[in-house]
C-alpha cells in the first residue's frame, strides 16, 4: 500500500512538473506579444480622450505588477492558474474565469463524450475485425480508418454542413436554441443542449473512432493467436465469452494508457470544428482570442486548461492501470 502511495505521489509530481513546463511555455507566449497590458489600458484611456504620458504608463505597470521580474510574474500566474484564476483579459478588461464561465466545461464534456463514443464503437468493431476472416469486412474497416485520417474532422463537418443545407435546408449548427442561450442551467436547457450536441460529438469522435478501431484491431490480433486462448478454447469456452474473458482483457488494458493522447487529438480538432459549427464554447473562444481580438491572456488560459485536462487524464489512467492490471501492479510493488 505504501509502495502504491509512493507510485501515485511520483506520478502526481511528474504531472505537476509537466504542467509547470507547459505553463512556462504558455506564459512566455503571452509575454512575447508586443505591447503589454499597461500600454493597452492606457491606450484605451487615450481613446476616451485622456491625455497620457510615459509616467502614466509606468504607474500603470507598477499597479499591475508588470515591473516585477519575469520569473516572479510567471510564478504568480502559475499559482493562480492552478486555482483556476487567470486574471483579467487586457483586451476586454474583464475577468477571464468569468468570461469562460461554463464554456470550458461544455467543451470538455463534448470531447469526453466523443472519446467515449469512439471506444464504444471501436472496441466491439475492432475485436470483430481482429477475429473475423471476412476479407470484405476487413478491407472496409481498413478503408474507414484510412478515411478517418484523410477526411479530418473539420472537413467532415464542412461536408455534413453542405449536405444538410442542400438537402434539409438547415445547417445543424450551434449548441443551444435561441431561448436557452443565456438562460441558467435547467432540465429543459440540458435537453436542448443534447439535441444540438450530438453532431459535434459525432464529428469529433469520427477520427478518434477510426484510430481506435485500428489500435484495438492490432492489439487483439496480437493476442488472439496465443496459446492461452487456444487452451481456453480446448477447455470448452467459446464465442464471445472466450474473446471477452481471455484475449480482450489482456489486449485492451494498454488502451487505457493512450486515452490521454486520444483526448489530445480530439482537442486538436476542437477549435476548427467549433468554428464551422459555430459552437459557443472554449474552442471557438480560442479562435476568437487568437485570430480576431489578439487576446493572449484568454488564449493562454484556454491552452493551459486543455493541457491540464490531458495531464489529469494521463495521471488518472496511470493510476487506474496500476489498479486494474496485475502486471503493472506487480512492477510497482516489488
Amino acid at each position, binding site marked *: 500500500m505504501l509502495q502504491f502511495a509512493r507510485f501515485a505521489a511520483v506520478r502526481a509530481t511528474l504531472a505537476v*512538473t*509537466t504542467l509547470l*513546463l*507547459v505553463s512556462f*511555455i*504558455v506564459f512566455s*507566449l503571452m509575454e*512575447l*506579444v508586443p505591447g503589454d497590458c499597461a500600454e493597452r489600458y492606457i491606450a484605451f484611456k487615450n481613446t476616451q480622450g485622456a491625455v497620457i504620458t510615459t509616467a502614466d504608463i509606468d504607474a500603470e505597470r507598477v499597479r499591475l505588477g508588470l515591473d516585477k521580474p519575469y520569473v516572479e510574474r510567471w510564478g504568480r500566474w502559475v499559482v493562480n492558474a492552478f486555482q483556476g484564476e487567470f486574471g483579467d483579459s487586457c483586451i476586454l478588461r474583464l475577468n477571464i474565469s468569468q468570461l469562460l464561465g461554463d464554456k470550458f466545461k461544455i467543451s470538455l464534456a463534448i470531447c469526453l463524450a466523443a472519446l467515449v463514443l469512439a471506444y464504444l464503437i471501436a472496441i466491439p468493431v475492432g475485436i470483430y475485425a481482429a477475429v473475423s476472416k471476412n476479407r470484405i469486412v476487413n478491407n472496409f474497416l481498413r478503408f474507414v480508418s*484510412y*478515411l478517418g*485520417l*484523410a*477526411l*479530418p474532422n*473539420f*472537413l467532415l463537418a*464542412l*461536408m455534413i*454542413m*453542405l449536405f444538410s*443545407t*442542400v438537402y434539409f435546408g438547415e*445547417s445543424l449548427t450551434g449548441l443551444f436554441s435561441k431561448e436557452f442561450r443565456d438562460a441558467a442551467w435547467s432540465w429543459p436547457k440540458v435537453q436542448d443542449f443534447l439535441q444540438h450536441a450530438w453532431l459535434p460529438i459525432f464529428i469529433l469522435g469520427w477520427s478518434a473512432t477510426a484510430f481506435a478501431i485500428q489500435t484495438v484491431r492490432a492489439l487483439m490480433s496480437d493476442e488472439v493467436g496465443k496459446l492461452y486462448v487456444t487452451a481456453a478454447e480446448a477447455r470448452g469456452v467459446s464465442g464471445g465469452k472466450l474473446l471477452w474473458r481471455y484475449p480482450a482483457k489482456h489486449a485492451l488494458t494498454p488502451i487505457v494508457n493512450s486515452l*490521454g*493522447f486520444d483526448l*489530445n487529438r480530439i*482537442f*486538436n*480538432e*476542437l*477549435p*476548427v470544428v467549433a*468554428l*464551422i459549427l459555430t459552437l459557443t464554447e472554449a474552442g471557438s473562444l*480560442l*479562435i476568437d482570442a*487568437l*485570430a480576431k481580438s*489578439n487576446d*493572449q491572456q484568454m*488564449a*493562454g488560459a*484556454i*491552452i493551459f486548461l*486543455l*493541457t491540464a485536462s*490531458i*495531464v489529469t487524464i*494521463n495521471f488518472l489512467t496511470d493510476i487506474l492501470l496500476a489498479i486494474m492490471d496485475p502486471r503493472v501492479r506487480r512492477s510497482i510493488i516489488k
Partner: protein
Amino acid sequence: MSKADIEAQKVKEAYFTASQHQLIWQRFKKNKSALVGAWVLIALILSGLFSPFLTPYDPTIAGRNADYLNGAPEIPRFWDENGFSIRPFIYTTERTRSIQTNFRWVTEVKTGLEDRRYVYFFVEGSEYSLFGIKMNTHLFGVDKGFIHLFGTDSTGKDIFSRTFAAVNTSMAVGTIGVFIAFVMALLVGGISGYYGGWIDSVLQMITDTIRTVPAIPLFMALAAFIPDTWSAEMRFFFISLILGFINWPTLARRVRTHLLTERNQEYVLAAQLCGATPGHVIRKHLLPSFTSYIIVDLVISFPYMVLSETALSFIGLGLKDPVNSLGVMLQNVTNADVLLNYQWYFIPVIFFITLVLAFVFVGDGLRDAADPYGDSH
C-alpha cells in the same frame, strides 16, 4: 542440378544478398493499394509542379475573370441542338443588367452556334515561369473569353487553376515542415539516444511536455504572432517553420528509441572491438540501420503537416490570399450563400482527400515493407 534448380538458387541468392532498399522495394511492389497510391501521388506531385502549364490561368487575382463571378463549372461538350463538333466547346456567358432582371446583375448563357467557345490545346496565354524558364503556353484554353472547368470564386478567380496551385503549395509546406521536423528530430533524438543518462531524461521530459500540449491550439497561438505587414512569402516560410517545430517530438522519440536499441546490438559491439571510431559506427552502422524507418516516418507525418496547414489557413491564421492552399480556398465556404448556391467551391476538397489518402497508402505500404518481420504473415 537442373536448370530450374539453378534458377531457384539464383533467386534465393538474390534475396539473401539484396540490399535493404531492394528488399523494401520488392515487398512494396507486392502491395497493390500502396502501389496505386504511389502512382496517384506521383501524378499529383507532377501536376502540382507543372500547375502553371496545366492550368489555363494565373491562380492569383491577376488571372481573374471579372465577368464571371461565382460562376458555375463549365463542362466542355461535343454536341447540342445546333449540331455536333469534333472540337469540344463551351458556351459564352455574359453578365447583363436591365429592367427585365430588376437591375440586378445576371449571368446569361448564350447557346447559339456563333457563341460557342472552342477548346484548343497548347494555347498562348498569360506568362509564367516554370523552373526559371519564362513560358506562356498553357495545356488548354479557349479561342475567345475564358474557360472555367471548376467554376470561379467570388472574385472571379479560376478554381481549377487555384486547385492545382494549392496542391503545389501544400506539397511545399509539407516538404519544408517535414524537413525542419526531421533535422530537429535527428538533433534532439540523436543527442538523447547517443548520450543517454540524465541528458536523455531531461530531453525526454521536454519532448513529452510538448507532445502533451494539443498541437493545433499551440500552433494557432504561435501563428497569431505573424504581423499583418509580412509578405505572403514570409508568412509561408514562417508557417512551414512552426509546422516543423511542432511536429518534431514524435519523430525525435522514434529516432531516440532506434538509437538506444541499435546502440546495444552485437554488430555495433563487433565494430567497436575491431577498432572502429564512433563516427564510423554512426555513419556506417547506426544510420543505415534505420534510415528506411526514418523515411517511412517522414512519409507518414507528411499528411499531418498538410492537414495542419489546411486547418490553420482555414481559420485565417495560416497562409493568406495571394498564396493558394486548400485552407485559403475554403475560408469563406461556411456562409449560407456558398453552401446553398455555389457548391463547386468544394471541388478542391476531393483533390486533397485523394492526396492525403495516397500519402497514407504509400506510408502504410512502406511501413509494412520496411518491417523485417513483414514476410511472416
